[in-house]
């Protein structure tokens, strides 16, 4: 801006009048509209698919039952393996305690 432009600015400012006051809850409404616009934006494809699939009660129930069964099965399998390993270690420990000089197979 040039020094001579001050006059133009003054003139413009003198002419300027504040508009009518903002409507009530203006800010809140703006935020609501932003949120609505964001919600309306399409998400990734799987979101819609998940919502659609889990909207059916039978599918949701089956999913949870299958996961529970998988958890139980994995726990049982791993627990048995751990149990067997410990038993083998204790058996070996017993043999080494009572017969440290014997040949191990």
């Amino acid at each position: 801006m040039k020094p001579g432009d001050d006059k133009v600015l003054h003139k413009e400012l003198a002419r300027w009048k504040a508009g009518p006051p903002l409507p009530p809850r203006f800010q809140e409404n703006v935020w609501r509209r932003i949120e609505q616009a964001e919600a309306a934006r399409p998400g990734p494809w799987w979101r819609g698919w998940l919502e659609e699939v889990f909207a059916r009660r039978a599918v949701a129930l089956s999913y949870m039952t299958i996961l529970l069964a998988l958890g139980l099965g994995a726990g049982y399998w791993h627990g048995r393996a751990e149990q067997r390993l410990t038993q083998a270690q204790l058996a070996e420990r017993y043999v080494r305690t009572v017969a440290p000089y014997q040949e191990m197979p």
Partner: protein
Amino acid sequence: MKRALLILLLGAALAAAGYTGVFWAATAPARAEMCSPAPELAWLKAEFKIDDTQFARISQLHEGYLPQCQERCREIASKNAALSARIAQTGAVTADIEKGMTEVAMLKADCQKETLRHFMAVARLMPPAQGQRYLQWVLGQTFPCHSTATNAACHMMSMQ
């Protein structure tokens, strides 16, 4: 979306809870054995279905056997060390090395004999079927040609 996410998380939580619960239950016997004062004896008790009275006697036998066994082991280790030093010194099979080797072999044979006696004494304290199973197993673990040893041991057991 919130509902779908909740179902997803609930499924995962159920799986984790199921896994933990079953794993915990399945490893409970091993944990109990590991926490006992003599885990290997606790294992023996569970494996060969030994009752409390038999277990007390077997534990007593075990406690009595261990110091003798350790003493024999110390003797063998000491003879072995002396023999190794002598071999390193001479670099030939001299008469005293031969003698030392014979002594170590005899000590080991004594050790085996005592170990076998201990196994048989333990087997006798078990219920008969379990005693046989124990002997078969322990001889298989400790003696070469275990089937022959087992047969011999069982034969000796039946003669006593």
